[in-house]
C-alpha cells in the first residue's frame, strides 16, 4: 500500500503525533474501529482505552482518555484529553503506583480527597488494563 493515512494526535497541552501511518485502531464509544487511508468521514467520541497505530509493520500503542476522533478526507485527527504512550510505562512502576494509590485511598480523609484518590486509582487501573489487553 503506497497511500498513507495522515494521522494526528493532539492533547490540550501539545501535538503528540502528526504524520503518515498505515492504519489506526480507535476505541470509539460505540465499539472499536479501524481507520485506513480513504476512510469515509466519521466523527465519534472515544471511550478510554488504547489506540493502536500501525506503521511499517510496527505497532505503537497509546493510551488515551476523553476525546474525539474526527475522520475527514484529509485524515484522522484525535483530540484527546490525556494521552500516554504505553511503551513508556514501566509495568513494575505502574504496579507500584497502583499500590500507592490504593494506600492513598484508604488513608484519605474527607470526601474531596477520597474522590481525588479514587480518580487517580481508576486512571492507573485503566492504563494497566489497556496494557494487558
Amino acid at each position, binding site marked *: 500500500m503506497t497511500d498513507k493515512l495522515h494521522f*494526528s494526535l*493532539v*492533547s*490540550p*497541552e*501539545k*501535538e503528540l503525533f*502528526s504524520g503518515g501511518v498505515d492504519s489506526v485502531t480507535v476505541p*470509539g*464509544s*460505540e465499539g472499536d474501529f479501524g481507520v485506513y487511508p480513504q476512510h*469515509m*468521514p*466519521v*466523527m*465519534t*467520541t472515544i471511550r478510554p482505552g488504547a489506540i493502536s497505530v500501525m506503521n511499517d509493520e510496527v505497532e505503537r500503542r497509546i493510551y488515551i482518555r*476523553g*476525546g*474525539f476522533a*474526527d475522520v*475527514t*478526507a*484529509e485524515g484522522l*485527527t484525535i*483530540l484527546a*484529553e490525556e494521552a500516554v504512550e504505553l511503551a513508556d510505562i514501566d509495568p513494575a512502576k505502574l504496579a507500584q503506583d497502583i499500590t500507592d494509590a490504593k494506600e492513598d485511598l484508604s488513608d484519605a480523609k474527607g470526601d474531596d480527597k477520597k474522590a481525588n484518590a479514587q480518580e487517580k486509582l481508576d486512571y492507573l487501573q485503566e492504563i494497566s488494563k489497556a496494557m494487558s489487553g
Partner: protein
Amino acid sequence: MASLKEFRNRIDSVKSTQKITKAMQMVAAAKLRRAQEAVESARPYADRMNTVVANLSGSMADQPGAPQLLVGTGETKTHLVVVASADRGHCGGFNGAIARKAKLLISKLISEGKQVKILCVGGKAYEQVKRIYSKQMLDMISLREFKVINSGHAAVISSKILEMFEANEFDVCTLVYSQFKNVMSQVPTAQTLIPAMDALDSDVELTGLGGACYTYEPDEEEILQVLLPRNLTTQIFQALLENVAGEMGAKMTAMDNATRNAGEMIDKLTLQYNRKRQSMITTELIEIIAGAEAI
C-alpha cells in the same frame, strides 16, 4: 543638605533595588519562553477543536433541537463576564489594561439595561473591578499557587461556568483576557464563550464537508453535548496560557525599564555625591590656607 553618608546609603539601596529588578527581568524572560512554547503547543488542539465545532454547528444550527450552549438561550438579559488577569503585579499596565477593558464592557452592558454577573480568574483585576462593581461580583478563582497552568485548571473554571449556565443563571458569557501578540504588545480582548455560535471564527475553513456524508457516532446531538463543554475548556485554557505569556512579556518590559531607571538614578546620585565630596574638600582646604595665612 544630606551628608555624605546619607548619599552613600541611598546609592547602595538603589543598587540593590537594581539587582532585584534585573533578576526579576531575567526570571520573567525565562518564564516567557516557556509560556510562549506552551501557547504554541496548545494551538493545534484549539484550532482543530474550532474546526470540528464549526463543522458540526454548521449542520446543527438551524435545527430546533440544537443545544443551548451552541445557539444560546434565545435571550440576552443576563451576562456573565469572566475576567482573567494575572495574580501578581510588577508587570506594568498589563492587569490595568484587562481591568479597564472589563469595566468598559460591564458599564456598557449595564447602560443597556442588562443584568451583569462577574467572575474573576486571578487576583489583580478582581481587586480593581470589585472596587466599582462589588455587587455584581460573584467569585474569584486564584491560580497563584500553580506554577504551570494545565488544562485541569481550565476545566475547573469551565465546569463552574457550565454549572451556572445549566442553572439558568445567565444567558451570555463573555471572557475578558489579554491576547498575546508579542513581547511588547498584549491586547485586552473580550470574547464570547456562550453561545458558542458567536465565538466561532468566521474564517475557519469548513473542511471535508464538500457534500460528503459525515457519519456521526453516536449522533450529532450527543457529540455536541460532549464537545461543547470541552470546547469551552479549551478556549479558557488557551486564554489562560495567552495571559501567562502576556504577563511575563509585560513583566519583562516593566522590569527592564525599572533596571534602566535605577541605573540613571545611580549615575545622578553618584554625581551629586562626588560634587558634595569635592566641595567639602575645597572648604577644608580654604580653611587650612586661611588659617596658615593668619599666622
